[in-house]
């Protein structure tokens, strides 16, 4: 099996049952995400980017269209534990230790136990010494890091990051943006990052898709040709700032839902 599957979305749309009429979350979208790349989905809060991520994860069925990852459907990939999600609210189980939570990512993926690998992951995300602690004893940033370590523990082919740094303060976020990318770059997984931070998207991804507010449509498709590794010095570069401006402009042009903008 190819470790770097492409993701194909063909006419994928999603709407939810609403009180009066269905709410359209994702408008029909056609898209190919190249294997081994990190793609960032950027858009205003509530625009449907997390919904798009959940569709690709197979956690929700699309209302229309088809998603294939390599040759499989998201469900098939999920059934053989080929993907992992780092959830927005970390979703750590409070009765398990930090180490137990991270090891759970491997157990649920039906991979053999590997305590050495779990320790290594914990030290990579800076949680050494907190093995026996419960999630409630960690800060928001530590919980997010534990959730990312759990996602990596199952060695997924497809890594889905749903605003993994949303609950993290700006300083920690900056540090994580420096320290974490080498983790998934080294593993070569295809990855998708949902974020509403422009700088984070530019810093981490190979390609940025700017989404419109509900229903989500692709407003701009911006490649990020910055060289890796992207240390803190990248933030000062001209190319970085130009890309941030481009993404910000695209976001501003599509600030409001189309129905409002048309008036």
């Amino acid at each position, binding site marked *: 099996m190819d470790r770097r599957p492409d993701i194909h979305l063909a006419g994928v749309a999603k709407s939810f049952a609403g009180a009066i009429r269905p709410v359209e979350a994702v408008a029909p979208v056609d898209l190919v995400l190249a294997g081994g790349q990190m793609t960032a989905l950027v858009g205003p809060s509530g625009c449907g980017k997390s919904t798009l991520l959940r569709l690709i994860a197979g956690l929700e069925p699309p209302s229309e269209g088809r998603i294939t990852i390599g040759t499989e459907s998201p469900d098939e990939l999920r059934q053989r534990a080929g993907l992992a*999600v780092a959830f927005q609210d970390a*979703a750590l189980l409070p009765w398990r230790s930090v180490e137990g939570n991270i090891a759970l990512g491997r157990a*649920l*993926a039906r991979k053999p136990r590997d305590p050495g690998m779990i320790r290594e992951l914990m030290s990579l995300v800076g949680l050494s010494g907190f093995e026996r602690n419960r999630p409630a004893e960690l800060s928001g940033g530590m919980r997010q890091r534990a959730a990312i370590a759990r996602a990596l523990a199952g060695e997924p082919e497809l890594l889905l990051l749903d605003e993994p740094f949303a609950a993290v303060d700006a300083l920690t976020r900056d540090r994580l943006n420096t320290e974490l990318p080498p983790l998934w770059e080294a593993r070569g997984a295809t990855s998708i990052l949902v974020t509403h931070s422009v700088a984070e998207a530019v810093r981490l991804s190979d390609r940025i898709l700017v989404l419109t507010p509900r229903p989500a449509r692709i407003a701009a498709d911006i490649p990020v040709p910055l060289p890796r590794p992207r240390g803190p010095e990248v933030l000062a570069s001209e190319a970085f700032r130009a890309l941030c401006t481009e993404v910000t402009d695209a976001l501003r042009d599509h600030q409001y839902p189309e129905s409002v903008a048309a008036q």
Partner: protein
Amino acid sequence: MSAGRGTLRGGPAALRAQHPLPRGLGLLLVLLIWEGVARATAGSFIIAAPSQIAGYMVSHSGLLWRAFGATLASAVQGFVWGNLAGVLLALLVVLLPRGERLLSALALLVFCLPLVATGPILRVLYGPGTGPQVTLAALAVYYTTFLPVLVGLRAAPQGWFDLVRSYGRGRMTALREVRLPAALPYLVAGLQIAAPAAFLGAMVGEFTGAERGLGVLTVRALRALDLPATWAIAVIAAGVSMLAFAAVGALGRRLDLAPPEVLMAPPVARSRRPWEAPAQALLALAAALLIWKGSMEVFGLPRFFAKRPEDVWFYLVTGPGAEAQRARLFAALGETLALAGPGYLAGLGLGAGLALLLALAPRLGGAVIPLSIALRSIPIIATAPLIVWALGRGAAGTITVVAVMIFFPTLIACRHGLARTPRAVLDLFEVYASSPLRRLLGAQLPAMLPAFFASARMAIPAAILAVTTAEWLATGRGIGALMATVASTSDYGMLWSAIALVGLAAVLAHALVAALERAVLARTSAEQLAR
């Protein structure tokens, strides 16, 4: 369901005992006052003095020990079986969500059956031995474990289930990794309530012709108007209940489980279509009748005492003398409802009222809450004879028994509800320097209502148990006394009719409260209504 991850962090202080006075000093003071009051009122034969009670316990220690051992053995067996049934039923509902309403309705119906009437029937079924006591103890606990465990199995946030699903794992993994660990604190909370209830159930079982046990001694002491004996048994039953309640709570803390914050009974589900609720009710009724008849036929129970549904219909409607029998039954039921209704409302009103008062004057809480937690765990069996003895065999005694039975759980549930008022909402009222009363009405009362209604529903079986037991043991009126009389004269037609009627009345009362709950919560806390 609004249960968040926060539920597993610091729990309400309400379940932990607080001691404003040094333990020994307070107890000594209470005993001294008790002794004084008892001596002052010695002529009226109401209160036995601690010295008399202690004297009785010493002089009859052998008898009391044997009786206590027998009751405890039945209670422990019933506790195990009843809780096992409650947990399995909750698992069944979680794994078969479509069957939830039917299973919940049947579980409620069985829980509402009056123990004082099922006792004599079980006695005939089992013959001599501990069967009825154990069964009644199990019947007294399974429902109060079923409800919180069901809530606990569902209390986990969606994200945890998404996590399991994202690895392609199914329901059984979700059950093992998420639902069962999440339900553990709820199970402990259920077991805590179950511990005194099992003791109570075992004692009721012993009323109906057991050879030994504290229930046997209670009946004997009441008949002989033996004041110190009645009090001594009540003190033992109360002490055991409080100890069991505290021991299970300590076990929960030992396991590092914070008590759950969310409602112990889930809010009622909202029907999507108007015909849904009546259709479900009819289905539950049909299922109940089917199980009633089916189990009797399968086990080949003799028609003489195991009356089928059609026998009850014949007895009450089509048979000879049906009209007179109907009149007798309904007169007794009316008499009972005239006492149970006011007691039920008084218990609920006083419980909720005191909770609100304590929200206005939090300083009082330190004195009242530990006391009510202690009193809540005392089985009604222990207090009923004493209250009726004190207040007489008229209406006041029975109404008080019912009110006391309901008052403490309601108070504690309402305190939990009040504690769940969102901090930010309270801050908002604080920012505008609103009066405490305004804050109470604007923020805290709406936050309390779901807990209030949950306890109003749970109070219905409790009220039935209290009123029928008081009537049966002490007052000699109403349907409780009727059931006692017809059980002793082997008038099984009337006994089964009474059971069916009480069960029906309980389910109707439950539906009424649930409808009221839906109507009120739709206005005040729509998010609480299960979809």
